[in-house]
């Protein structure tokens, strides 16, 4: 019934006056994919969405949907439908007339379009609200109406601009599940813009991490989270500690990295093998690190510091170490491990991990070095 569409951006750029919002990106979103465009505000993700929708014209490059360049086509003729961040429900129309709007514009007679709109409302569990106006709805209800209004156009690609940001936490989680279920049922392509990392990895088949108009990494949620390409992605996705050091030796397939004032890291050589003296960024997952109370011991793949903060998170405990001159180092300990031998504020401890948990960041620092963390080595 629904035909999924493939979205292909080719050297797509957009500038507003002097500001370059999107800098010649290439991105292929396969048909039927749930894709999340993820990045901080101003990174160009909404501009990309609006260029796919046709509300913004690329300065250069092409937007292809199922192979056809749609630049210049009006938004209504692209096979896309957009859900706006503020939902943009027409305040003077009832829910059923809002949903029927597309049919009205294409000249479907009133009884028929009302009937179809009622069916669509039933699909989003809003049948009982058909005759309300948007002002009488809650945020979650508005969103369902906006979804129904977009879906009635039979889109191949549904574009969602921060659809969950206006909802409270509970509703956000509920709607997140519904969006994913809806995408699976319909089988169409969803492109969802968000600045929330957990939302992206919970929903998406394809996560596109953006920064300053560039794509830093486009990969599966698992790859983006566990194998970030750059320090920027590792920091933005969270759950990682990023360290930078100078390669002091490479032998027997092992790279030895000297961290300034912090010890040494060893890990299996990557391809291409870094040269001695080169600066290499690595990341280590917060939940793959253990703590030892004695500060003496193995200095390889270990780091000493003072406990600066302890946060209980339920299933785990977040321990923040104040490194020597570096950015904070965070260890997420399973609650059982933490409470077996708890550490306290101000304790000098040693964090250690295995060489297998070191992930070299092959893309280096990323374009903007560190958007969120403070302090630099």
């Amino acid at each position, binding site marked *: 019934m629904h035909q999924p569409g493939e979205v292909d951006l080719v050297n797509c750029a957009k500038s507003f006056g002097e500001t370059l919002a999107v800098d010649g990106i290439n991105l292929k979103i396969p048909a039927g994919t749930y894709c999340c465009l993820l990045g901080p505000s101003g990174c160009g993700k909404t501009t990309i969405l609006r260029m796919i*929708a*046709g*509300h913004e014209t690329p300065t250069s490059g092409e937007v292809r949907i199922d192979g056809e360049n749609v630049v210049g086509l*009006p*938004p*209504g*003729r692209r096979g*896309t*439908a*957009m859900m*706006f*961040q*503020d939902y*943009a*429900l*027409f*305040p*003077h129309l*009832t829910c059923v007339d809002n949903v029927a*709007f*597309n049919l*009205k*514009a*294409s000249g479907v007679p009133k009884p028929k379009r009302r009937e179809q709109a009622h069916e669509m409302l039933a699909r989003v569990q809003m049948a*009982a609200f*058909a*005759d*309300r*106006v948007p002002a009488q709805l809650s945020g979650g209800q508005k969103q369902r109406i906006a979804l129904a*209004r*977009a879906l009635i*156009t039979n889109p191949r690609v549904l574009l969602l601009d921060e659809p969950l940001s206006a909802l409270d936490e509970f509703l956000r989680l509920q709607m997140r599940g519904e969006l994913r279920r809806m995408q699976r049922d319909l089988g169409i392509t969803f492109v969802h813009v968000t600045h929330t990392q957990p939302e992206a990895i919970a929903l998406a088949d394809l996560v596109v991490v953006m920064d300053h108009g560039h794509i830093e990494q486009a990969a599966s949620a698992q790859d983006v989270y566990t194998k970030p390409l750059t320090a920027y992605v590792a920091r933005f996705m969270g759950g990682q500690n990023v360290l930078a050091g100078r390669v002091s030796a490479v032998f027997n397939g092992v790279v030895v990295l000297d961290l300034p004032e912090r010890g040494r890291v060893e890990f299996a050589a990557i391809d291409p093998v870094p040269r001695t003296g080169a600066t290499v960024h690595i990341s280590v997952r917060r939940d793959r690190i253990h703590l030892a109370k004695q500060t003496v011991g193995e200095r390889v793949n270990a780091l000493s510091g003072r406990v600066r903060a302890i946060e209980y998170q339920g299933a785990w405990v977040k321990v923040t170490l104040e490194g020597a001159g570096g950015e904070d180092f965070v260890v997420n300990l399973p609650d059982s491990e933490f409470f077996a031998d708890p550490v306290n504020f101000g304790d000098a401890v040693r964090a250690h991990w295995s060489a297998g948990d070191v992930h070299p960041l092959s893309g280096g620092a990323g374009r903007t070095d560190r958007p969120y963390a403070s302090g630099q080595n």
Partner: protein
Amino acid sequence: MATHTTEGRPWTFYALAGIFTLFVMFLYGPMACVYILSFQGPNGGLTFPLNGVSTHWFGALFRQERTGDIAGAFSRSVPLAIIVLTLTVILSLAAGLAFRRRFLGAGLIFYVAIASLIVPGLVLSVGIGLAFQMLGIPPRWYSSALGAHLSWTLPFGLLIMFAIFSRLSRSYEEAARDLGASTWQSLCYVVIPIVLPGIIGVALFGFTLSYDEFPRSWLTVGPNNTLPLEIWAMTTNITSPALYALGTVTTVISFVVIAVALTSIAMIQSHRSRQRLARERAMRAGS
């Protein structure tokens, strides 16, 4: 820090309330005098006290030839006000839409349009009168006076439209376009219905500003007066309470126009909500 614990109002409340009372009295007192005196008895004069109460002077208004051509002036003022209203609504709506996008010279055009608010009406009237004379076109209420009135109502209409459109989220139009509406459909089905209350406001402004306009009409109406000019002429040559009766009648007309506009809005709204209630009830009964 408040040191007293009583719930009393501060003295400033009473001072401001007093000023406001004086203001209201000043605003409506003189008008009330005119309305009361228009019901002067047949033998009464132009001033208090009332010498009996009658509607004699309202009758005299239409009987006496020497009161001037009230009916004729009225038959020009109302159509003129309606033409001004229509043009003001259409042009200021179009301008409001145009100014939503930035275009070259937008700022200049805006200031030029607004500047005519500052130009004294009489000067403008003299200018338009002169220009028409130079061009050899006889001034008439439907040509030169219409233009003069528009120079007054359009900047007002424009300013109101700007205020309305600045609050109108652009995403409504984008949503309409996204849902396949043409530019025209987006305007008719979405933009105009949303801004309709503002459009009615502009229409009311256009009507009343034109209907009472004196200075801009002065040298531009040609041989036949509009109502304000006719009233002015009458004040110089008649000295009977018929003048007050005329004031009362014209005020009533203004009020009727406003009341019709407001009740029609209220009726549209209550009609919509009644329909909604009826549909909801029908649906509950059906389910």
